[in-house]
C-alpha cells in the first residue's frame, strides 16, 4: 500500500508503558514513522493549550474506562453519558491544576467519581428500592463465576438498589475505606458497612440465580 493516496495520521500515541499506537486511524496506509509522538505529559500540555486534537486524543484514551465508571453509578446509559460529559468538561477546565504527581488516570477517575456522586445526591427522582431476597446461605462455588463476563457484572451491579450500588462501587472497585465513604456520603461508617454486606449478598444471590438459568 506504500505510495498510495493516503491520509496519514498526524500523531503517534505513546501510552507511556512502552506501547505506541496510532491514534487517528489512517484510511489506507500505515502512518510514516516520522510522525509526532505524544506521551502523556505532552498530551496534557496540549490540552492545557486548548489544542482540540489533543483533547480529543485524551477523550479517546480515557472515555471508555470512565464510561464504565459512570455506568456503575448511573441509572441508565443516558445518565452515564451525561456524567461522562460533565466530568470531561471539568477535566479540561481544571487540567492546569494537575501537578504531574501520581497517576493521571487516577486523577480523572476521581473527578468522574465525584461528579457521579454529585449526580446521585442531586437526583430528585427516586424509584422504590427492590428488597433483596433473603440469603440462600452457603458459599458459592468459584466455578459459578467462570462464565461471568464484565458486561454481566456491570448489569448485575446496575440492578443494585442505589444505596448498595454506591457503597459497593466506592469500596470494592474504587478502593475507598468505609470512613472515607461515610464522609463523602454524609452517613455513618456502620451504615456503609451494612450496605456493603447487603450489596455483596444481593450480588451473590443474583449470580447464583443466573447460574441456574444458564444451567437450564
Amino acid at each position, binding site marked *: 500500500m506504500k505510495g498510495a493516496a493516503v491520509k496519514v495520521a498526524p500523531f503517534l500515541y505513546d501510552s507511556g508503558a512502552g506501547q505506541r499506537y496510532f491514534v487517528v486511524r489512517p484510511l489506507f496506509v500505515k502512518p510514516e514513522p516520522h510522525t509526532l509522538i505524544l506521551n502523556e505529559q505532552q498530551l496534557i500540555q496540549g490540552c492545557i493549550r486548548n489544542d*482540540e486534537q489533543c*483533547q*480529543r486524543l485524551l*477523550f*479517546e484514551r480515557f*472515555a*471508555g*474506562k470512565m*464510561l*464504565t465508571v459512570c*455506568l*456503575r453509578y448511573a441509572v441508565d446509559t443516558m445518565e452515564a*453519558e451525561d456524567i*461522562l*460529559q460533565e466530568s*470531561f*468538561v471539568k477535566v*479540561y*477546565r481544571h487540567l492546569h491544576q494537575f501537578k504531574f504527581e501520581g497517576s493521571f488516570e487516577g486523577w480523572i477517575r476521581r473527578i468522574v467519581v465525584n461528579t457521579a456522586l454529585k449526580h446521585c445526591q442531586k437526583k*430528585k*427522582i*427516586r*424509584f*422504590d428500592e427492590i428488597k433483596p431476597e433473603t440469603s440462600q446461605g452457603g*458459599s*458459592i*462455588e*468459584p466455578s*459459578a*463465576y467462570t*462464565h*461471568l*463476563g*464484565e*458486561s*454481566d*457484572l*456491570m*448489569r448485575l*451491579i446496575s*440492578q443494585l438498589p442505589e444505596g448498595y450500588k454506591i457503597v459497593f462501587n466506592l469500596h*470494592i*472497585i474504587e*478502593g475507598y475505606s468505609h470512613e472515607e465513604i461515610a464522609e463523602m456520603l454524609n452517613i455513618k461508617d456502620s451504615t456503609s458497612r451494612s450496605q456493603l454486606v447487603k450489596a*455483596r449478598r444481593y*450480588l*451473590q444471590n443474583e449470580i447464583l440465580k*443466573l447460574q441456574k*438459568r*444458564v444451567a437450564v
Partner: protein
Amino acid sequence: MTDKLFDSFIKSKLEHYDSGAPMHVWERIKNDKDRKPKGFFFWRNRYILLLAGLFLTGITSYILLNNKEAVATMATTTTAGVEKTKQEKLPNEPAATLQQPISTQGKNESSSTNEATSTHTPSTQSTPSNTSVTNQSSSDHTKTSVFVQNNNTNLNGGVSSISLSLTKNKQGSLFTSVNAPGVKSNLVNSSEQEQVLSIAGFSRNDNTMPKFRLGNISMPQNKPTCPTINGPRRRDFYLEAYVSPDYNIRTISAGDTSDFYIKERNETEKYRTSFSTGVRLVKNLGEKTLLKAGVNYTQINERLRIVSENSKQLTQIITIRTVVRSPGDTLFVRDTMYYEQTGTRYRTTYNRFRFIDVPVIFSYEFGDPELMHFAVNAGPVFNIVSFYNGEVLDTSYRPLSISTKSGNNVNNWRNNIGLGMFASISIFKKLNDRIHLFGEPYVRYNFNPVTQQNNFIKQSYLITGMQLGIRYNFIPPGQRYKR
C-alpha cells in the same frame, strides 16, 4: 469463595474494564468545554452588575456628603487629642489651656511659654483660619498674643474674630484676655474666664468649646443657624433587610382543556414552604412619607409526585459462554433473554420557581417612633429575572420539564414576568437609636402569568407572607432634623 475473593474478583474484572469511547459524547463535550462556567447570576449579567455598582456608589456618596460635618468634628477632636497626648509627654510644659489651672509657679516660665508656642505653631498654620502669633518679652512679664480670624465662620452676634492674649507676670500668674468686638477684658480667676467664654458663646463644660491653646486655636463646630420658616425637616435614610416565610395561591387556567387536567395538576403538585428575602433602602420624602427601593428574591417550592401503577420494566440479558473443546477450538455461545418486572413506580420532582425583583414602595408612617409605630406600604414590583426548574404535567399527563435551562421549553415559560403590585402593613419596634425591628404582612400579585402568552396554560401566583427584619438608620440621632 470468601467475600475477600469475591471482592477481588469483581475488582479485577471491572477496575480497568473499557466500555468503549462514545464518540457522540465528544461532540457534546466539544461544544460544552469552551462555555464559560456558570457563576452567581449577578456576576454574569453585566447590566445588573453596573446597576448595583451605581446603586452602591450613590449610597456611599449620599452617606459621605451627609456626614461631612460629623467627619469634620471628628477630625478636630482627633487633633485636640493628639495635642493633649503631646502635652502629657512634656511634664515641664506649662498648662496653657483654660481648662487647666491658670496659675503656674514653675521656673523659667518665659522659655516654657515660648517653647509651647513654637511647638504648636505648625498645627496652627495648618488650620484654615488666619492665625498670627506674636511673642513679646519684657523684664516684667511675658505676653503671648494669639489672633484668630476665621473668614469662614460667623460666630454668635456677628463676632467674626477673637483675639486671645495670655500674659505672665513675674509671679507666674497667667493673664488671659479675649478680645473680640465688644468683648475685651483681662482675666485672672476662673469665674471671670467663664464669663468671657459665656460672652463668646461657650461654656467651660461644653464639648464644643474651642481649645484655647497656644498655637492651637480651633473654632467652635456648632455653627449658629437661623430657623427656617417651615421649621426643621426630617431627613432619615434607612437600610432594611428581611426574610419572609411565604404562602402562595396558585391559579391555573388551561383554555378549552377539561377541568380534569387542572384537577390532576392540583392533586399531583403540592405546595411546599416558600420564602422571600431582600434588602431595600428607605428615604423619607416628607415628615411621614417614605420611598423604599431594593432587591427582593422569592422562591416558590412545589412537589410533583406521579404514581404509575402496573409499571413494567423490560430488561435484556445477553450471556456469552466460552466453551473450549480442544486447544484452538473455542466455541462462543450467546444467549439472549428478557425479563419483565411489574410494579408501582413513584416519581417525585421538586419544582422551584425563582424570581428576582426590584420593588419600589411608597410608605406612610404613623404612631410613636420611640415606642412602636406603623406604616402602610404599596407600590409596583418590577421583575428582573425569573427562572424555574422541575417538572409539571403536560396535557397528556406526562411530566414535562419547566427548566429554563432546557432549550425545548424556553418558549413556554417566561424569563421575566414583568410588573406586579405589592401592598403591606408594617409594625416597627425600636431597639435602640438606630435599629428598629419590624414585621410586615404583605401581599403581592403579578399581572402576568409565569407561562408565555402563546402557551394556552396560564399559571400565575398570588404571594402572601410575613416579612421579618431589621431597619438601620444611617443618620446619627443628632442630625435627623435639618433646618
